[in-house]
């Protein structure tokens, strides 16, 4: 009961936040512009769009989470939850899920729009476009998941918003770009499994660290 309440509240808070509104509108526009001006070569553009929107979305997701957690620590919002008999990890996981789902939907919209432009602009068959959609989507979700997890971790450990944002930009951004770099660096033929595995493992490790530190934190 308490988890669903907190999750619902986090969704309410995030989906209409200024950053999310920018993502809801900005990412599809970006994808549209990319596909309108560049020509696709059987999915290359979809991948490029996915890399771009996932990195922008991921970075903003991480910043949003870090700033939100530090703000709530500073304004002692957690006091009101932590004195109730609820699990501390519910607070962290609900934030992660809310941001991950919102940003993923925004990126999905952007990539879908790009694909639609591809379809109407070129002679590429829809089944090939659909096949080429799987890899970029998995990479996008992996990047966003890792970014959101780094946002949680840096939000928990950072003493101030400045430190948190600096950590996200100069450390989190590199960690979260790993899934999108691996296929290019190692020239893997079927990278989707690796990308998915990296996304899941990194997210679990970072989230576990964030949860453990949040559980031990004295407010």
């Amino acid at each position, binding site marked *: *009961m*308490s988890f669903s*309440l907190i999750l619902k*509240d986090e969704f*309410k*808070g995030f989906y209409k936040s200024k950053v999310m509104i920018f993502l809801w509108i900005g990412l599809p526009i970006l994808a549209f512009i990319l596909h309108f001006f560049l020509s696709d070569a059987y999915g290359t553009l979809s991948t490029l769009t996915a890399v771009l929107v996932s990195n922008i979305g991921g970075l903003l997701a991480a910043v949003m989470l870090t700033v939100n957690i530090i703000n*709530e620590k500073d*304004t*002692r*919002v957690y*006091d*009101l939850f*932590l*004195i*109730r*008999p*609820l699990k501390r990890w519910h607070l962290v996981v609900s934030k992660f899920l809310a941001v991950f789902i919102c940003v993923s939907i925004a990126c999905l919209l952007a990539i879908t729009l790009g694909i639609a432009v591809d379809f109407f602009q070129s002679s590429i068959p829809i089944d090939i476009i659909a096949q080429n959609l799987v890899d970029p989507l998995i990479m996008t979700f992996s990047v966003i998941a890792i970014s959101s997890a780094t946002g949680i971790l840096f939000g928990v450990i950072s003493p101030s918003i400045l430190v948190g944002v600096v950590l996200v930009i100069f450390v989190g951004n590199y960690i979260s770009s790993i899934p999108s770099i691996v296929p290019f660096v190692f020239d893997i033929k079927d990278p989707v499994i690796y990308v998915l595995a990296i996304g899941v493992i990194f997210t679990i490790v970072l989230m576990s660290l964030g949860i453990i530190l949040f559980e031990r934190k*004295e*407010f």
Partner: protein
Amino acid sequence: MIAVEVKNLVKHYGKVQAIRGISFSIDSSEIFGLIGPNGAGKTTALRIISTLLTLTDGSINVMGFDLEKKPEEVRKIMSYLPEDAGAYKNLTGKGYLEFIANFFNPKTVRNMVAKGVQIADLGERINDKVDTYSKGMKRRLLVGRALMTDPRLAILDEPTSGLDVNNAQEVRNIIKSTAKKGTTVLLSSHNMLEVEYMCDRIALIDEGLIVEKGKPVDLMKKYNAKNIEEVFMKVVKK
């Protein structure tokens, strides 16, 4: 019946000794005040009893539950009003009370919210966003939030902080009537005249130690003082 028993409570933040071994007990339905200047250790003590901070040494028993062993049970029966708590700014005052009430028994939500609205007494403004509230209005909303649940133990850190004279007086009356209905109240304040009016018993705390405790009237007699402020000055100078 003893509602809260604190024995030799010690709290260190690294090398800083915030609380250096304090003991006190609170009877059921009593209003007990922890009084002292800023930095004396009042808030730390309240946050430990509220289960927000862990204790370094000592023991605390709340309504028969050992705080260290059964924090979940303690959380079920108490309510805490932090000195500078934040309310969710994106909610309306009423929405905020509903949000908090939903963490309790779903059948009691309506009554709880009605009580919170009544205590907060913000009129039509209860339907406005918390973001638009003045400091005093936010405080009243939070007092409503803390007391609407009919807690067995209410821990109130500087409950009238930031309120004007009228609002402060109203909040004091609410706290007194809440205690009369059976809630045990532990509050802190650096306003010694205020606690003289509200508290059944008080403990004067300074530099992490309780330097004196008892009924305000008895302490004033003992130190031949006109008010608790004078008592405190005399005790600290000793």
